[in-house]
């Protein structure tokens, strides 16, 4: 049993969006959707400050895998559940598709995997298509890769070491050290969801 978490280092994110590409290929998320696609992870471009003290930042986001997830609280069928490693997952067979979790998530981590997306998934991935029914979708910390001892695809592909993944319960792990030292802090703590994704800004 682990307590997986991630640290996002906004200072070292290059904005290359390789994480988005890797995630969308591994998890077959609808990169084809209108208005820029639907993603389990995003990199938002921010402009901070005022001229002449202005800088551009790249802000990676993902499901926060909260300890007290509002999406889990509102799910009527128990489709959203927390596994033994603290990862918030969705059982697609039980997902009603009501969208309540999308509304409840204060971190904009969820989206609808719709009928059109299923068709496109099959079109692009053929026999390897992984989505066979409509459901609400979100980051899983690549739970299937973890089972094989690999890192989530976004962290594995990050060139700037901006995504640091590990076990928060292992004091020797880089992620635990960054969190325990206070360098990395969660977003929106006031909402009480207790996210397990932390940010170095």
């Amino acid at each position, binding site marked *: 049993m682990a307590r997986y978490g991630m640290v996002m280092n906004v200072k070292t994110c290059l904005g290359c969006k390789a994480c988005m590409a890797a995630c969308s290929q591994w998890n077959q998320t609808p990169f084809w959707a209108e208005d820029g696609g639907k993603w389990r992870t995003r990199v938002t471009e921010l402009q901070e400050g005022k001229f002449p003290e202005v800088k551009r930042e790249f802000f990676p986001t993902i499901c926060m895998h909260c300890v007290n997830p*509002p999406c889990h609280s509102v799910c009527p069928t128990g489709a959203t559940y927390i596994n033994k490693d603290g990862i918030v997952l969705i059982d697609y067979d039980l997902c009603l598709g009501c*969208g309540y979790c*999308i*509304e409840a998530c*204060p971190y904009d981590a969820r989206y609808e*995997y719709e*009928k059109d997306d299923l068709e496109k998934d099959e079109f692009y991935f053929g026999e390897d298509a992984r989505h066979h*029914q409509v459901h609400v979708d979100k980051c899983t910390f690549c739970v299937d890769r973890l089972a094989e001892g690999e890192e989530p695809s976004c962290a594995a592909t990050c060139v700037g070491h901006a995504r640091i993944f590990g076990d928060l319960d292992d004091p020797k792990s880089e992620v635990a050290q960054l969190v325990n030292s206070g360098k990395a802090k969660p*977003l929106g703590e006031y909402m*009480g969801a207790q996210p397990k994704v932390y940010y170095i800004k």
Partner: protein
Amino acid sequence: MDLVQQHTWGWFIAIYLYFGGLGGATIALGILGELRFNKGKWFGIGTALLGLAILSFGLIWLILDLINPLRFLLALWVKGIAHSWIARGMIIITGAYVFGVLYALAAFFEWTTFKKWMGYAAMFCGFGVTTYTGLLLNANVGIPFWHTPALPVLFTVSAFSTGCALLMWVLAGKNDHESEHFFHAVEGFDIFLISLELLILFAYFDFARLGNAAVMKSSHMLLTNPLFTIGFVVLGLIAPLILEAYASMKENSKGLAAFASALVLIGGFLLRYLIVWAGVFQYPHGLAG
């Protein structure tokens, strides 16, 4: 802080919230009329079934809002009952159907004691449906305008006000003594409810005036939308309040009260639609792309 208007829920959910509340209130008020105001068994049966029919009509819209409406039967798999208001709502709605139908049967066959208990159980579930529609929105922590204890209260009061309005329509065509008596009781109750609704709205917007950025944005969106200010507040609350208060003091004024009821019914829908429309997420800075 990034403020983003929600778009996942729209018309369909608003229609459901409206008819759910209206149906629940109609069941509760109708059975109250039969049990406490001697309105006769056909009134009780009629209003209980009318309430259930309205609730069913609302549920159709909820089902249509699912990503795949054919999966609606999964809603009966209420594993999340310990924490989810959709799961709890399913139990309350099922209770309204079961007790509502049992009440109607008991009333038809005149099983007096059984009818009374089933009637109270159906009333409780009807009341529950009105309140749960507000709690449903209330659970969304990322939308501060919804995440306030005032919302379930506002929706409950508004649902009962629309329920009163519908019953006044049903009663307006009848001229017997009991109907007259109950009509005026409902009219008086609706005047009280509309006044209370105005008070809650005032408190809601006063809270919003001093609230956080998302709450202020939501309230600004509503207060600058004529559909809310003129459509709901003026025509859906203040006008029917004045008309009903005037009608309650005059003889033979059922027509006027029925007209005011129509305004209340339209206003009730506008309230739900606009509250859903004005939901604004308050994301930590950087999240909204």
